[in-house]
């Protein structure tokens, strides 16, 4: 497993593309197949877009994971923005405070294997999401 550790600051729409591309590269290095690389990149794109839209700025970090004989990748998205008042509501399909599609958070959760939101109003939001390489694959 590569001990590659990278972070991408999110401040503009260009950074959304950089974040998902860096995430895809690391996913490839970790041994994810193209399908899961795209899944991880899509989840990063949604979470990065939320940082830009709701918190204006933040950071996305990723790193390869090894847990026993499991291998995977963790993505952490952190901002010091307004926070999410009701996380379980925000995780429902179609819920949006910005007239959006409301699919970013629930969609990213479906794409990843583990998904945790820690948010405090007025303090910010941290999303930690993990994907594991499925057994039976290289």
């Amino acid at each position: 497993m590569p001990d590659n550790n990278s972070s991408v600051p999110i401040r503009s729409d260009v950074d959304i593309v950089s974040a998902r591309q860096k995430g895809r590269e690391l996913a490839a290095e970790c041994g994810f197949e193209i399908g899961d690389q795209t899944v991880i990149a899509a989840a990063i794109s949604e979470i990065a877009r939320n940082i830009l839209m709701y918190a204006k700025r933040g950071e996305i970090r990723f790193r390869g994971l090894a847990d026993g004989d499991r291998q995977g990748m963790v993505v952490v998205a952190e901002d010091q923005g307004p926070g999410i008042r009701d996380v379980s509501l925000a995780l429902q399909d179609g819920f949006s405070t910005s007239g959006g599609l409301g699919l970013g958070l629930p969609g990213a959760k479906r794409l990843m294997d583990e998904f945790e939101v820690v948010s405090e109003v007025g303090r910010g939001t941290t999303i930690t999401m993990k994907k594991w390489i499925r057994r039976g694959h290289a």
Partner: protein
Amino acid sequence: MEVPILKQGDYLIASIQSALTDADLSQLREALVERVGRFRSRGVIVDVTALDVMDSFAVRTLRDIAHMARLRGAETVIVGIQPEVAFAMVQLGLTLKGIATALDLEEGLNFLNRRGKERVDRA
């Protein structure tokens, strides 16, 4: 990165060459809608083969393009959605409902030609 838009007869063909930022996607929407009016185009093909990811912004923009083009008399076909991109879209819950899609450029052109013929036959 600007998306090149080719005019081919009654059709406009936009071939996305790489990953696009939100600003690039919005710019593509403006350019296509403007050109549909300027050239009185009957069809628009957006080739997304090179798109790395279709997230909610990309899907929303493509839907907007299709709806705006239709209001101006042109049918839109999205071509080249890669299988892994399609899989991630479905998991995200994103749909292109009401918008024509085709496997590749050739199929997209066939679709528009059939549509054009139906229009003539009805007239």
